[in-house]
Structure formats: structure tokens, C-alpha cells
């Protein structure tokens, strides 16, 4: 019984969004822009240009701490 109610609610939410998206006019253009933007940001910029340097170069927080302390206490050559 509870499971059926839950399914009905999920169905109603799905239909709410589905019909909403279907009836959009200018919204479709905007969604295309949003999707292209998110793709460029997360699949290109983040992956190829913006690695998290400390996460990429070190495995543990201890290593990261040691590295940052070294950076903060030694002048670059």
C-alpha cells in the first residue's frame, strides 16, 4: 500500500516535470544553453584545465599538509 503511494508520488513528480519541459517555449533554448555550458565546464574545463592540484598530486591529507607547509615556509627558487 505504502509502496503504491510512493510510486504514485514518483509518477506524479515525473509527469509534472515531463509536461513542464514539454510545454516550454523559450525554456528549450535555455536548457540547451545550460546543458552545453555544463558540458563545457565539467567535461572540458574541469577535466583538462582545472585539476585540483593537491588532490591529484597527493594521496593523503598528511602529505597535502606537509606540502603546503613547505610552500608556505620556503621561498620559491
Amino acid at each position, binding site marked *: 500500500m505504502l509502496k503504491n503511494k510512493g510510486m504514485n508520488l514518483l509518477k506524479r513528480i515525473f509527469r509534472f516535470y515531463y509536461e513542464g519541459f514539454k510545454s516550454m517555449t523559450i525554456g528549450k533554448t535555455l536548457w540547451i544553453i545550460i546543458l552545453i555550458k555544463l558540458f563545457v565546464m565539467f567535461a572540458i574545463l574541469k577535466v583538462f*584545465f582545472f585539476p585540483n592540484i593537491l588532490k591529484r598530486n597527493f594521496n593523503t591529507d598528511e602529505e597535502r599538509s*606537509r606540502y603546503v607547509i613547505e610552500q608556505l615556509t620556503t621561498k620559491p627558487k
Partner: protein
Amino acid sequence: MEHFDLSLVNWSRAQFALTAMYHWVFVPLTLGLAFIIAFMETLYYKTGDEEWKRITKFWMTLFGINFAIGVATGIILEFEFGTNWSNYSWFVGDIFGAPLAIEGIMAFFMESTFIAVMFFGWNKVSKKFHLISTWLVAIGANLSALWILVANAWMQYPAGMFFNPDTARNEMHNFWEVLFSPIAINKFLHTVSSGYVLAALFVVGISAWYLLKGRNVLLAKRSIIIASVFGLITSVFLALTGDGSAYQVAQKQPMKLAAMEGLYEGKEGAPLIVVGALTPGKEYNDGKDPYLFRIQIPKLLSFLGYRSGDAFVPGVKDIIEGGYNYTDKDGNQKVALSAEQKIERGRIAIQALADYKNAKEKGDTIGMAYNRKLLDENFEYFGYGYLNDPKSIIPNVPLTFYSFHIMVGLGFLFIAFFILMLYLIYLRGFLINKWLLRLSILMIPLAYIASQAGWIVAEVGRQPWVIQDVLPTVAAVSRIDSSAVQVTFFLFFIIFTTLLIAELRIMFTQIKKGPKEGGN
């Protein structure tokens, strides 16, 4: 500082500034327009007048365009933290992480959930639930801004934290001190109210264009009244919170205040410069008059900064040379150290951190305790240890000065504009002169200029600090190749400019089309 790659620092700063400024093109309209729409929909809910529904839906469409183009542009700033500012990202620790995590949750759950109801829910949910959703979108957007601004305020005034030399991170010991620091409260109120004023001018400007064209007259008239009342109230509030912000700057960031006013030599009963031009090439200690010309109000800077017309306001030279009396954050009377003395204490703090690390590696507990004490005693000047020249604590004075005066001047112009608009409507109904309608359209770009100028004051004025007194940009930046930053700078420039052009084109098309029933 000559040891650091200044090209890398400058390109990283330029990239961050570019990203933040473009991001801030989209945000203020979202913050303010959401509330204006909520007021309009409330009138629809109360009166049942279908015209209010049509008006609400029209402005909601423009809100949707701005929201869609602007959404997630701020995430790029977080990318930059991890790549270009990795030392900083680690150093700030949870203090930055906690507010940003709350922001993410709030932004996701509140805005994303209720924005769908706001756009898709007409005739599908009850009028009351729809109205509540619209209000929750407005409140959610503003609460998201709260957490970002709390994080930014902490950088201007690092409260509620202590530095842990074992992890090289700042740790929060009092969340409420971070959240309710006077800088944070003022910054939040001032920043969001600037968004409200911008949105009000946006609505008035577009409505004025309709009146000039003789189109959508009822929509334009009603929108102008709602936006002008909202704009007048919020622009007065903006001035009050601006005063609160300037007061806090005087207490916590005196160099920024000196730069905002072009004040090189401090004085008791310092005047406020209303309009002025700075002497080009002025050095802090050359004795030249800092102003080519100025119109000033006697004693007002002292009064606004310290709530006493005779109070001493330190200038750039005083802050570098020290020796003046001031009240510290605990209310104690102190004599200001010179920049040289602060640099010396900063170096002691940095050396103590290095020695603490060495002592720890050797298991030398006495050495650890000694250096920990030395570090704690000098930590408030930690960042000065990276500077070689006292002059490097002076921000770009002309940029800060002119941005500040443009922002303040426009802020008062907006108050006068809203008063005039409402007065003329009261006097003659909507038989408003065409010049005022044309002026209304001009107000839209002026609102954006004022809004950007405000951020320039806040961020350029606090240079060279990423975290006030504790971490300068030169130490916060990742030691990466500056050419990589240059490439992404231009990439961002292209992406953001494309987005802005897309927004303007879609927005203009939609404004030209005007309101219509149905569709999102």
C-alpha cells in the same frame, strides 16, 4: 616578494576577477527580481486579477533567462580555487568549506525544487502553493548568497578560527562568530540590497521602454509602481548598509578606507571627499597634495568611520609608518605597529611554523611547544612575512578611490531617481515626461556599473591580502605555469562573453515580444 612569479600571481588574480565580475553580472538580477516577482504574484493571489498573473509571468520569463544563463557560472570560481589557489584552498580549510557546502545544499534543494514549481506549476498546483514556491525561490537565492558572502567576509576579517600548524589549516572554533561577524552581516545586507536596487531599476527601465513605445501600458504602469516602491525602500536600505560597511572597514581594514578616500596623511576631523580627482603618480611619502581638485564635507569621514567628528582617521602614510593610537577588536587602546614591524613579526611567525614542523619530525616536544607559542603570538601578522617592501600593503588607490565614488554617487542618484519617479506619478499619474522614461532606460547599465564598482572597492581595496593580514596573494597562489593560467583566462573570456551575448539577445527578443499567456 621578488622571489615570487608576479606574472603568475597577476594572471591568476586577473582570471579570478574576470570570472567573479562576469558571475556578478547575472547574480544581482536574480536576487532582486525574485522578490519583485513574489510581490507581484502576492498581488495576484490577493486580488485574483488576471493582469497581475500576466505581469508576474512576464517578469518570471526574464528571471528564467537570467537564471539559466547565469546558473553555475560561480562554480568556475571553485575550479580556480583548486588549481590556481591551492595553497589558499588548503589554508582556509573548513572555514570556507562549511559555508560553501551549506550554500550548495540550499541552492540545490531550495532553488532547484521550487523553481520548477514556479515555472511548471501554474494551474497544476494550488495558487497558494505556487505563491509559497515563488517566495521560497526568492528566499533560497538570497540564502545561497548569504553563505558565499559569509565566506568572503571571513577573508576580509578572519573571525572565529585558529590556525593549526599540524595541518596548515585554519579551523573553525566558533561557527556563529564566522556567521555573525559584523563584516559578514553588513556585507550580506549591502550586497543583496544592491541586487534589489539593480532589479528594481531593470523593471522600471524596461517598463519605461514599453511606455515610450505605447505598448503593454498596464503592465508597464503597474510594474513601475511596484519596482519604484521596492527600489526606493531598498536603495535607502542600501545607503544605510553601505554606512555600516564603511564603519566596519574603518575598524578592520583601515588601509582600504584610506584608499577609498585617497587619504594619504591621516587627520583628526577628516573630511569626506564628495567629488575629486587624484594626483597621478602620487607616492605615499612625497608630500604632494593627493587631489587635483576636491569637493569635501568637513569631518564627515571621521564621523562615518568612527562615529565622532573629531576622530583620527589614519592615512596610507600613517598605516605604513605606524605610531598612531587605535582600538583593537577586543576594545583595547593600542599604538599601531609600522609595516616594517609587522613584516618582522610575520617573518618570525613563518619561521616558527617551519621550526615547529622540523621539531615535530624530530619528536622534539619542547621545540614544538616553544615554536607553537611563538607562532600563536605572531600569527596575526603571518602574511606580512611574505612582503619585502612596506609599500606592498598599499592597494591600487586610484582604482579603489574612483570605484568607491562612482558606486556612492550612483547609489544616491538611484534614491533621487526613485523619489522623483514616485513623486511625478503621484502628481500627474503616468503623464511622465519622456526624458524621465529615457533616463529610466539609462539607469539599467548604471545599476550594473555601480554593482561592479562595489565589488572592485571590496576586492581591490583589500589587496595584497587574500585573507586580511594573514595570507597575501603571492603566498596563496599555486606554483604552476603562468602560461596555463593565461590560456584559461582567454578561454573564460570567450565563454563568458558568449554567454552574455546569448543572454542579451534572448532577453531583448523576449522584451520586444512582450508578455503572453502560457509557455515558459
